[in-house]
């Protein structure tokens, strides 16, 4: 509690000056930035941010929102004041002066002639002033949008998970893992110039590699390890202990828009004839689970109240995600023989699907080949005794 009454007169004058400063009324266009920051613009075009108002799932859901709810979506998915802009853009992040809370997209735009960043540039430009901002570089910027305290199951908590997890203690931020040289790991940054004519400096990857990015396999490969312990035999079944560990110290697995994702374990057994049988976690032709009640899931358990699954009219019954660094163990029962042929080995795969099949189907946008194919986060195999 530092208070300096002696500065009061100065502060009063400062307040007057602030009060009389002209209001920034023109938002800058992202296309302006591309003229000089060509690499950033090209890489940024590959990111989900650039298409945040265009994904099939987002547009189908937003179409079902009333006007205030749609305006809420747009705070984070289409936060532009300038016309003809889509998604999250350069200006959204680099002109954010701060926030009115670390959630729900409450960004406050600053002076449009300033870009906020690391402030490490040694080169001056007439295009904009450069100001250092701990808000932009410390992860709070990310947290303002990546923390959704919306109605119903429209909940996202990566920033809270990060704040309470080991990465924060190590001063590893969202930016280290999502804008560095190796997606999903704090492995340093590339060196490259900010504009074609500038000197090389620390390059932050503007692909914002996430599960929807073309480079997702590198990211998702950092997420988890899974083990199957030697089974015990009981009543014609082999009982395996299956353990999943979230190796990511940054946040939970899964994190972010859990209502949109599917993360589950598929267990298969191979018998002595070489045939493979699905024990749990199998899906039908449309991608929907065959055993939704019993398969091992890390996604949220959500109660939808309507036929059409609308997250903000639903409630989260249980969060099953693994905290950063945490492990959990399940018992998996596998029949010891299939039509007489003994089980020879068991394989578990931890699968991640970007869009939940049942959510998509209920909205009338069945999974495409690209959206439907699950990524494999981890695999474990164990031979029967």
């Amino acid at each position, binding site marked *: 509690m530092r208070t300096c009454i002696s500065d009061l007169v100065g502060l*009063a004058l400062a307040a007057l000056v602030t*009060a009389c400063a002209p209001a920034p009324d023109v938002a800058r266009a992202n296309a302006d930035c591309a003229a000089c920051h060509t690499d950033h613009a090209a890489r940024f075009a590959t990111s989900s941010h650039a298409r945040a108002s265009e994904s099939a799932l987002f547009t189908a859901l937003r179409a079902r929102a009333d006007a205030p709810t749609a305006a809420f979506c747009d705070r984070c998915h289409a936060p532009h004041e300038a016309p003809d802009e889509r998604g999250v853009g350069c200006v959204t992040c680099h002109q954010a002066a*701060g*926030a*009115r809370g670390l959630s729900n997209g409450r960004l406050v735009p*600053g002076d449009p002639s300033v870009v906020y960043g690391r402030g490490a540039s040694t080169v001056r430009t007439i295009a904009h002033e450069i100001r250092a901002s*701990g808000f932009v570089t410390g992860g709070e910027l990310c947290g303002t949008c990546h923390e959704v305290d919306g109605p119903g199951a429209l909940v996202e908590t990566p920033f809270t998970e990060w704040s309470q997890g080991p990465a924060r203690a190590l001063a590893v931020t969202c930016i280290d893992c999502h804008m560095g040289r190796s997606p999903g790991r704090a492995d340093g940054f590339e060196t490259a110039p900010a504009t074609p004519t500038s000197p090389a400096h620390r390059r932050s990857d503007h692909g914002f590699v996430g599960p929807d990015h073309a480079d997702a396999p590198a990211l998702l490969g950092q997420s988890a390890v899974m083990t199957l312990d030697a089974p015990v035999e009981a009543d014609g079944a082999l009982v395996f202990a299956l353990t999943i560990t979230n190796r990511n110290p940054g946040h939970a697995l899964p994190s972010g828009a859990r209502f949109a994702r599917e993360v589950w374990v598929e267990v298969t057994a191979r018998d002595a004839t070489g045939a493979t049988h699905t024990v749990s976690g199998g899906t039908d032709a449309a991608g929907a689970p065959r055993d939704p009640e019993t398969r091992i899931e890390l996604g949220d358990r959500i109660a939808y109240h309507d036929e059409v699954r609308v997250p903000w009219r639903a409630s989260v019954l249980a969060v099953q995600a693994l905290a950063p660094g945490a492990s959990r163990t399940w018992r998996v029962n596998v029949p010891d023989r299939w039509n007489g042929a003994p089980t020879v080995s068991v394989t578990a795969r931890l699968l991640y699907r970007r869009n939940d099949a049942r959510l998509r189907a209920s909205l009338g946008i069945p999974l495409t080949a690209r959206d439907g194919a699950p990524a494999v986060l981890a695999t474990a195999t164990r031979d029967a005794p």
Partner: protein
Amino acid sequence: MRPLHRLYALPLSLSLLVPATASAQSVTEAPRVGWMPSSRVSVGSRLVLRVGPYTLGGVGGQVAVRLGERVTVDLFTDHMVGTRDGALRHDHEVGTMLRVNLTPGSRWAVAPMVGACANLAVLHAAQSPDVTVSDIQFGARAGLGVDYALPHGISLGGEALALAYLGHALTGWAYRAESSPDLSVTGAGQVTLHANLHF
């Protein structure tokens, strides 16, 4: 937010002018002593120090109307600024007080008082003053005031008050300013010094 900036600029600048005008007028007044029944209205300016969730200091003005031998009603406005952890806060308040003079006829007026006020509180983030939150809070106040009558229709006085506000707590960080979504009651203490000119 911008329109609010403009709103508080006016009372703030006015309050800085009030002390100047008040002292200029006092020179021309005829000598007058005590709390004479003929003096019904007085106008004054004041200095305020407030201690609470934020420590604020500032200036204000008041008009006092005497309704009877003992009872006076004040209308006041105060404008205060202060910082906490580098975050600038300024408050702009209007309110009314009812005082009961326990010592009529004396040069000294000792008066318990109660009142109500409405306060516009504005908070700026420490590193990013463009980031602001504001809240309108309603308050109740009670305390004791002492005034001393000088010649020329001038009186000097002070008040010590306990305040309670109903509103949204405002908190500032380096780049963030937040208003709590919940209503809460906060307490504060205040000391005021004033000079009044009696008509």
